[in-house]
């Protein structure tokens, strides 16, 4: 493998492969998204989020500076980066597994005259670049806004900007090592499915426990300070660097920056080295997963309808694919966050309307995967449904049932838990659960409609379906519908209507709005499924 590399040195070869794979990915994205309006939407959305975070952070920091809340100011950045870290662990764990072990191009790359280190470097860079997108949109404006608000010196900006860009690499390197260790020493099937679950549940539990401490802060704003997150986390280093540079302590700020940079510069090559050394064995084990035994389900004597057959098939697939569970865990985690945070230190009064909007958001979160991947999950086996005597309506209704069973149950549980946690009576609880059920139906329908319009059958693992624009567009549409309902709910609350502060009227109109969104979405989806060519 050393001589057959066409005279390239190891760095040359790695750089060549990085460029080639990045170019391939860019071409794939461009060809996936040919519509200019979608590009336009993505750019406007990205710039808007960037500006909102930048201006919001800037304004918030100025307010805290004016209030003399120095301790609070110093402790906020580490928490902001911690939130990102938890979120990124959730995303990047599966990504590390997908990029390295489940990637479809890996067999081709491994049979080419390429050094193992070049392949691993290229895959590592590709993974980091994907995470950089999120860092640039969400972290960069926060860090820059913080420095502007704190009136920091000019030279701190490039310093923090480079720290933000380095941060995802640190995280990804750690996750890659955990992945390879898991695949070397844990039976492959357990490792693969366990990693997906760990990626979803560990950050959720951490976040839940951490937020509990934050939510119980008391005292005046001038003396308030968020509890210190673990000092060994890279998010704490970059947070401390930002806080100290913003506070005019360059020595401390640079110390944390250099710590992050040094650990990344030393840690990433070590991680790549470890992965290169152990990759072949782990990959072989991972791809040759022994088949799982499945109990032979005896055919029932009752004939299932074609729709029921599709529902049964999809539910079995869901139960056997832990990768598909993660957004339900996240949705329920959000309910926990609301309960811990809001019930103890409410920012705004706890009303039925507020709880409805909150569970509406839980429904949108819960519909992320089931709705937006309902059709694409068929993968290359989509021909089976299209060649079978099933019309678009049957396929669509089966897909809706499966997605709604998941999202509806999660949303209803979340709504009930939230209502009980808030101390609402049975009437209010029923109204909130009903709102959650309607919101999840609408969110599922919008997701399915978008998926039917832009299906993606060429994925390497199910979580690759929902990336970038595919996730953002339907998510924002669902948020838009929720915002419309929220406006109705809050306007009617102050309209002196009979009943519990106008909640009944608000709920009725919201159900109407959700029904319109659902019917329109399903109409579009039915048309697109009928026209789908495979």
């Amino acid at each position, binding site marked *: 493998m050393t001589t057959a590399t066409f005279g390239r040195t190891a760095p040359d070869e790695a750089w060549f492969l990085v460029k080639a794979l990045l170019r391939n990915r860019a071409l794939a994205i461009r060809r996936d998204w040919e519509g200019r309006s979608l590009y336009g939407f993505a750019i406007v959305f990205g710039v808007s989020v960037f500006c909102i975070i930048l201006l919001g952070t800037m304004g918030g920091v100025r307010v805290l500076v004016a209030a003399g809340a120095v301790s609070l100011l110093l402790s906020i950045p580490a928490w902001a980066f911690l939130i990102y870290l938890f979120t990124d662990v959730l995303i990047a764990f599966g990504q590390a597994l997908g990029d390295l072990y489940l990637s479809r191009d890996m067999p081709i790359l491994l049979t080419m005259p390429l050094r193992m280190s070049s392949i691993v470097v290229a895959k590592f860079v590709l993974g980091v670049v994907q995470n950089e997108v999120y860092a640039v949109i969400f972290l960069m404006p926060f860090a820059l806004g913080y420095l502007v608000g704190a009136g920091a010196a000019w030279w701190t900006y490039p310093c923090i900007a480079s720290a933000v860009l380095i941060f995802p690499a640190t995280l990804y390197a750690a996750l890659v090592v955990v992945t390879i260790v898991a695949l070397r020493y844990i039976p492959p099937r357990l490792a693969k499915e366990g990693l997906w679950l760990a990626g979803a549940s560990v950050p959720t539990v951490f976040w839940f426990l951490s937020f509990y401490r934050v939510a119980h802060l008391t005292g005046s704003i001038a003396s308030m300070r968020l509890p210190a997150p673990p000092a060994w986390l890279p998010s704490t280093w970059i947070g401390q660097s930002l806080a100290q540079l913003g506070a005019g302590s360059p020595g401390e700020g640079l110390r944390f920056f250099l710590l992050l940079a040094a650990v990344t510069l030393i840690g990433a090559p070590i991680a790549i080295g470890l992965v290169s050394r152990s990759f072949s064995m782990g990959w072989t084990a991972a791809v040759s*997963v*022994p*088949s*799982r*035994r*499945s*109990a*032979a*389900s005896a*055919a*029932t*004597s*009752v*004939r*299932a*309808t*074609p729709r*029921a*057959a*599709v529902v*049964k*098939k999809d539910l*079995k*697939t869901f139960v*056997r*694919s832990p990768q598909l569970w993660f957004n339900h865990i996240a949705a329920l985690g959000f309910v926990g966050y609301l309960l811990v945070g809001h019930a103890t230190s409410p920012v705004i009064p706890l009303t039925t309307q507020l709880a409805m909007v909150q569970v509406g958001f839980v429904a949108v979160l819960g519909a992320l995967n089931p709705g937006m991947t309902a059709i694409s999950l068929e*993968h*290359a*086996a989509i*021909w*089976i449904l*299209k*060649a*079978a*005597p*099933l*019309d678009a309506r049957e396929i669509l209704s089966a897909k809706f049932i499966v997605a709604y069973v998941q999202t509806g149950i999660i949303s209803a549980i979340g709504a009930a838990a939230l209502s009980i946690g808030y101390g609402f009576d049975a009437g209010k609880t029923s109204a909130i659960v009903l709102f959650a059920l309607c919101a999840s139906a609408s969110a599922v329908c919008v997701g399915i409609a978008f998926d039917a319009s832009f299906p993606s059958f060429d994925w390497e693992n199910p979580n690759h379906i929902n990336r970038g624009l595919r996730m953002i567009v339907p998510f924002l549409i669902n948020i838009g519908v929720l915002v419309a309902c929220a406006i109705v709910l809050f306007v009617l609350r102050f309209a002196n209507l009979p009943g519990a502060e106008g909640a009944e009227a608000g709920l009725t109109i919201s159900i109407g709005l959700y029904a319109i969104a659902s019917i329109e979405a399903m109409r579009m989806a039915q048309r697109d499924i009928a*026209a789908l*060519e*495979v």
Partner: protein
Amino acid sequence: MSGPPPLIEVDGLSKRFGDVAAVDRISFTVHAGEIFGFLGPNGAGKTTTIKMLTGLVRPTAGVARLCGFDIVREPMRAKRQIGYAPDEPNLYGKLSAIEFLQFIGDVYRLDQRRMRTRIAELLDLFELTPASTTLIEGYSHGMKQKVALCAALLHEPRIYFLDEPTVGLDPKSARILKDIVRRATRAGNAVFMSTHIMEIAQSLCDRVAIIDRGKIVAVGTPAELGAMGGLATLEETFLKLTGGIEDRRVADIFRESA
């Protein structure tokens, strides 16, 4: 014209992808009891034709009737008449073979008792019984191909569409498939089969169509086609009609790379 109507009736069928005519106004019929071979080089339009006939792709022009049902206008009735095994056996990895076949049986509304018997027979025939409760994601390509064939055969359709059915099969399973195909046609069904293997076309098919660059360039029995233009075999006719690589060109390529 006398006799029963054809089971497959294709008239002026076309499919364009942008400026490219993948299939260009092809017409043919396949009758009950007939094994119809569809030959052509890579990219000639074989799979696109099968996809149009099975309702996976909508034709740009022309008509295709299966047992008298237009696949575009009456897709549900037409699809109930067919069994399809694609060239790539992409199945549901998270189901076992038994669960997958039960799913197919339910979609085609088979009687449960009949379905169970039929599934057991087919799994046994293709020697899949020991692996029948294992998830399909752990199967080899050949095993998946066998499951796809079982699915196509399960509901005993009138018309079988088999796209490169013997690719990936071991010799024994290939032989079983050939026997099944012969038996199916003897029972009055029709088989439409694409293949690259001339031996199979020659020995198995009653009639063969050769498609090249989207157009059908010849139709006839293997013997008729083999004798076309004074050539000796079906393979020679195929290579002549489709502009196959000549020996001299092959020699040139290998001389260049030597």
